[in-house]
């Protein structure tokens, strides 16, 4: 299945990208995507990461579905 991953702020800087399309196995989770990213970008594992799927916060163990928009970012700091 295909999902779209979005990065913002620090995660975008670390990964050097703001958006990428991922071809994942069925039953993949955001946690699995994060583990995969941490291999290439180990700095990511040193930060507290929040996950949103289709613009809603979700736990990292949520099952992803084909066509989902997965956002991966550090704790927010607006205001």
């Amino acid at each position, binding site marked *: 299945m295909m999902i779209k991953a*979005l990065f*913002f*702020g*620090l995660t975008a*800087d670390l990964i050097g990208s703001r958006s990428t399309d991922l071809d994942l196995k069925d039953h993949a989770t955001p946690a699995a995507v994060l583990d995969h990213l941490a291999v290439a970008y180990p700095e990511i594992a040193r*930060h*507290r990461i*929040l996950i*949103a799927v289709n*613009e*809603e*916060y*979700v*736990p990292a163990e949520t099952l992803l579905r084909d066509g989902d928009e997965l*956002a991966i*970012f*550090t*704790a*927010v*700091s*607006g*205001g």
Partner: protein
Amino acid sequence: MDFFELTTSPIGITSVARRVVPPECGATVTLDGYVRQFTKGRETLHLFYEAYEPMALKEMQKLIEQANRDFEISSIGIVHRLGRLEIGETSVVISVAAPHRAAAFVACEWLIRELKRTVPIWKKEIYADGEEWIEGEKDVTPI
């Protein structure tokens, strides 16, 4: 009469505070957040704010809905600035109008605390000797 916006233009406090005034109200409490020049002795040159815009707007709308349920208030305006901000420029304005001011104070303080916790916006501080994405401290509990 509630409204919430993201903007790359300077925010006028009055334009936010005065957009939320219904005839049954007598007081509006406004939180004006702006770029602090010194934080723990370190000088900030300017700031940069980035948002996950569609989700940020959804989260702002959720905050407004919950505040209207939880507090006896009449209307809320929230405007958050994005992009580059100079020292002293307003990053966020939250105005709450209420028939009685006590509810406006409580709701405004709740809104800024929750906005900082849940709305996907990130701040980068640009110092004389480097820059840093600021990471929030509070947990976001997924619903």
